[in-house]
């Protein structure tokens, strides 16, 4: 499913629901009223968008730290010849939620998510031992914005 498969109502629905579902007794009916479609039509479309992969998910966005866990962004400067080995070594840690290659001397960037804030340091020490490389830990010190809105 791609952009070309979306009609005008799908687009309005995607744009509207990126802003958030109202927390009321019949939330989908409330949004359906706003968009002037039937509740059943809205639910069908939403399911199709989710199943078709246009939406990665639909549901509550939780604030990781307020769930009591630890979260940080960290980077490695990996020698090119060693890159594949280091991918395996880093990804083997279940605490690594996301890992991206980026084009910079610091060429591997990953997010660590742990059950407790204290477990971040343990995971970093483990990754340093497994890779033989220093981890550049860049926890957020201040949050200005977390909100993805991609109009279609």
């Amino acid at each position: 499913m791609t952009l070309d498969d979306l009609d005008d109502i799908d687009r309005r629905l995607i744009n509207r629901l990126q802003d958030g579902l109202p927390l009321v007794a019949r939330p989908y009916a409330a949004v359906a009223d706003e968009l002037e479609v039937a509740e059943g039509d809205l639910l069908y479309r939403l399911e199709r968008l989710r199943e078709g992969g246009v939406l990665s998910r639909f549901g509550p966005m939780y604030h990781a730290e307020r769930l009591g866990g630890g979260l940080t962004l960290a980077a490695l400067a990996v020698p090119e010849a060693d890159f594949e080995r280091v991918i395996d070594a880093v990804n083997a840690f279940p605490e690594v939620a996301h890992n991206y290659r980026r084009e910079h001397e610091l060429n591997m960037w990953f997010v660590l998510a742990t059950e407790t804030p204290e477990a971040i340091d343990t995971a970093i020490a483990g990754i340093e031992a497994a890779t033989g490389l220093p981890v550049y830990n860049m926890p957020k010190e201040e949050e200005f914005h977390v909100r993805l809105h991609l109009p279609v």
Partner: protein
Amino acid sequence: MSVSTCPSSPVSSRDVQACEPRELDAVDRAIVLATQAGLPLVPDPWGAVGREVGLSGEAVLERMQAMQARGVIRRVAAVPNHYRLGYVANGMTVWNVDDAHVARLGREVAALEGVSHCYRRPRHLPHWPYNLFAMLHGRSHDEVERQASVLRECLGEACRDHRILYSSRILKKTGLRLAGSRPGAASDIERRG
């Protein structure tokens, strides 16, 4: 196009001002576990979650309203797949901004077009002088670079240097999960691109 779109006054961020984190109790935690893979697509989603965790729909709704009010839930929302919507260029922009001004400027650039996440993070001198991170999303590298030039203008003389780090390969991508939960969960980190 050269006109700065920098907002004249800082935009208030509810996340920055929200109350202190509070422990989740067992009921909250059960609701998190039951919903972190997604909210049921049925007319009464709260009732459906309630049947899973042994609560009434009304109780689930009240709990979720309370969690949203104290910032544990940012919002209940659709998360689009960037790539499917044509946003194929994702640039992590990093900026070396004067410490004296970074708090104010961070709020300002966070409100600019294309910015999804914006944080202050520690420098690692001498290798890494950048202390402000803004993730940009565009339909092309050109579009991301146009967005970045607006940020550059907004930051002005307080910014000494910046870089755009494009992701060139996804090496791993899983959601955040509480222990004992199902895959596919999401939180802040789900949308980092």
